[in-house]
């Protein structure tokens, strides 16, 4: 069984990866941190730093958060608003 997760990339990370949205196919039971490791292991995500800020479905989440099929996983560069 696999799930599909929409990875959203912003600002510098979108620039690094060369895309602001990617569909990731992951094994059932994957956690948010696993999705980032998967992306980092590939060609496009190699530049992502070892720790990143994550949000699942628009709310900040820990890397331990279990992912469901159809979740939106945002990978956020360090915040710089204000």
């Amino acid at each position, binding site marked *: 069984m696999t799930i599909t997760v929409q990875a959203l990339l912003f600002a510098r990370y979108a620039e690094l990866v060369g895309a602001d949205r990617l569909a990731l196919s992951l094994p059932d039971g994957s956690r948010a941190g696993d999705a980032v490791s998967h992306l980092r292991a590939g060609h496009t995500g190699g530049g992502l730093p070892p720790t990143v800020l994550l949000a699942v479905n628009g709310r900040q989440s820990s890397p331990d958060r279990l992912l469901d099929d159809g979740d939106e996983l945002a990978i956020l560069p360090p915040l*710089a608003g204000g």
Partner: protein
Amino acid sequence: MYLTHQPIDLASLIAQVSRAEHGAIATFTGAVRDSHAGREVTALSYSSYESMAEHECADVVREAEAKWPVRVALMHRLGDLTIGDVAVAVTVASAHRDEAFVACRWVIDQVKARVPIWKRETYADGTVGWVDPTVPGGIVMARPDAEASRG
């Protein structure tokens, strides 16, 4: 709505929170500066994860209004700004000035810490940087190829 692509109208934010029982209004505005980390800034662009940012702003406002007897208005601008443009404004009305000042300071600190917004600066020498408060110097330079592809 706490995000806008239009210029921020401070007077209308103040009007939004003012009540006859409020004697004190504290306001903070953050504007685009002409320099950052020793570099001359010529242009600036804010981007955001907008749906999450709206949620976080609403949470910050609600939490402030629960912690203190205040009314809070908050607006953050996105898109391309020039030097001197207001990027963010916080307005806090209260019966007394203590809570107005404390809550205003708290709100802007929370916005900077929690709201997913990013700042891309263009410098006088044509280079481009991403503001990153977690690195020494506060800037990560953009890749020239990415920059070229963006234009």
